[in-house]
């Protein structure tokens, strides 16, 4: 079993998330995380999907995904060739007594305090899965009251962009009759 991160460019159209989620569910593929958001092009949304490949090959998952008409492009983001990050907002128990200890942890992980109360602190942090996991372990001893975690997002290193490789698509002339079938 291995984890893979896929960057998927999809048409920004209604139902596209349901199509992708439904495909993973009906073909019994395991999703670890899924994040969707806009891109530099308003017609296109980007999904970052982390999948756990068990009995299915990654190739098979990609090919099935590619069959969805609204899916424009799929690229695997290899950890060594991409930047990947997720975001957490975590509410921990903290008082003036242990505040110094908390600050030390936050400094180590580049995390910031975004809200506080008499008994709690709310912390925001971003980073790759390993860093986030380490931070959460470090915060465990203060008492985690609530955790909100985003899906992973990722982008390839270097100057290339996925969109450049994708959007030079020619249009298809409609035959005079749509019934002019492809076979002949």
């Amino acid at each position, binding site marked *: 079993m291995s984890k893979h991160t896929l960057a998927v460019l999809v048409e920004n159209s209604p139902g596209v998330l349901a199509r992708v989620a439904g495909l993973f569910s009906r073909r019994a593929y395991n999703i670890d995380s899924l994040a969707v958001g806009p891109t530099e092009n308003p017609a296109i949304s980007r999904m970052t999907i982390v999948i756990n490949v068990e009995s299915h090959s990654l190739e098979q998952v990609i090919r099935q995904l590619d069959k*969805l008409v609204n899916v424009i492009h799929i690229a695997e983001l290899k950890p060594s060739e991409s930047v990947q990050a997720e975001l957490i907002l975590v509410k921990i128990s903290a008082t003036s007594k242990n505040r110094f200890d908390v600050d030390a942890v936050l400094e180590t992980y580049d995390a910031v305090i975004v809200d506080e109360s008499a008994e709690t602190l709310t912390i925001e942090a971003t980073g790759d899965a390993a860093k986030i996991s380490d931070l959460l372990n470090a915060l465990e001893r203060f008492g985690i009251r609530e955790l909100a975690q985003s899906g992973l997002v990722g982008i390839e290193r270097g100057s290339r962009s996925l969109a450049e490789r994708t959007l030079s698509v020619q249009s298809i002339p409609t035959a005079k009759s749509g019934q002019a079938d492809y076979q002949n």
Partner: protein
Amino acid sequence: MSKKMSGASSLVKSLESAGVDVMFGIPGGAILPAYDPIFDSSIRHILVRHEQGAGHAATGYAQVTGRVGVCIATSGPGATNLVTPLADAAMDSVPMVAITGQVPSNAIGTDAFQEADIRGITMPFTKHNYLITDPDQIPRAIAEAFYIASSGRPGPVLVDIAKDALQKETDFVWPKELSLPGYRPQLEPVNQSILDAAALIAQSSKPVLYVGGGAIKANASKELLQLAELLGVPVVTTLMARGAFPDSHPLHYGMPGMHGTVGAVTALQKSDLLITLGARFDDRVTGKLSTFAVNAKVIHADIDPAEIGKNRFADVPVVGDLKRTIAALIPAVKAEFAKKAPDYSAWNASMNKLRATYPLGYDLPKDGSLSPQYVIERLSAITGPEAIYVAGVGQHQMWASQFVKYENPRTWLNSGGLGTMGYAVPAAMGAKVGAPDTPVWAIDGDGCFQMTNQELVTCALNNIPIKVAIINNESLGMVRQWQTLFYEGRYSNTSLESKRVPDFVKLADAMGCIGLTCDRPEDVDSIIKKANSINDQPVVVDFRVFKDAMVWPMVAAGTSNDDIMIAREMAPDWDSQEL
């Protein structure tokens, strides 16, 4: 040039522009605006009796003509009644466009009267689908739907249109071009894969052409025949490919799979190279996958890249249109053979011997009652290979695939992937509409027939004179066979008693058809001839057959093809075969 009109008129003009000549459907509230311009359209609309019938009729039409079949229904139950035919069309890669009305856009999501989220429901088994709420989007959606349904691997596309989008005023503009950045079917095979395939063929000593329904979809029969004769090796045609290669051809070993011939099943099992052409390694063909053709390398040619490696690893994948693929493969194989002529004689000799030892056959019932296999064999012999045969699902379907002799593509229609009981009558109706001058016989079971026979009313009223042979064994025969073999003969809920009720002759008569009955072997020929002579009315023949006939050979579900049985508790005598 555009002209102001209603969304409904725009829909009908779009369908006309897409080249639709016939559609099958039933009106209702949400789709009603569209039925007003349909009244004046050049498109023939056939009013069916159940939306499921509309869907299967569209499939039958598409399978026979190669064109896109069209069905139309209203929202809610009208749309959900199309679910089975859409799933059926998806499994068997049938080009189909379904149009459904939806409740007005401001009512969507309110659990309005006759509201069902048909786009959501059909996502898993449509190639693509649409929900249109803006009338200006109608022509583009229809143009895209027809393109997507008919290109690449064909499949069903649903266009759901809100009632207010049909009522509002719009401009009709038929798009000159389509932009589908996420849909680019690869038609032309990569040359290197063709060369690799040819090299693998030249190295093999026991190749088999494993031909699937894609050969029919791609109209590749002519090329297939050339390739087969060039190679001179066994050809097997799956359930969906019957007719893609002539049954009379000496290289043809018939159908592989659960009820395939010993020759076809064994050729695959013993092969060292499966030349897979538009087939998908379905479980009904492979049996237990880990024991399927274990010594064979695989060339897998398919238009759908997702089929490659899905069930079986492909040593050489070839993605592309099958007609072009085979056409490209022929010169490449010739070039390889010019370097070194192949010798498949030992392989062919052993397979020939096996085929001769274990031909398809059946035992006549000892009580002198009518044999279902005999009925189907005679139907084929008398009616001939130019006719179209349409089956339901079950024993009669398997016998129709075994004992009808097919010579031409698009003459055998059945529900292969989904296994939809009730497919035959409406699909035969659609087939007859698509090929009005060709005799169309539905070979149906008494169970299947009782699911969708009401479309015979449609046939009777619309001059669609199909013929139906009910293989009446008064039971759900295939389920009963499994109960015989695997449930100690405990026949739980498989007895339909259809020799008592209904009276199929009276039922046929009530639906405006000629009803005939036959229960004696000596009457079979004359009754088939009589049915064949009637061309102005649908005919239903109740063939009252032996109840305990079973389909053989059989590879039990989940077992290895090596364990094929030619009759109950009887395996082929492998020891006497040199394989």
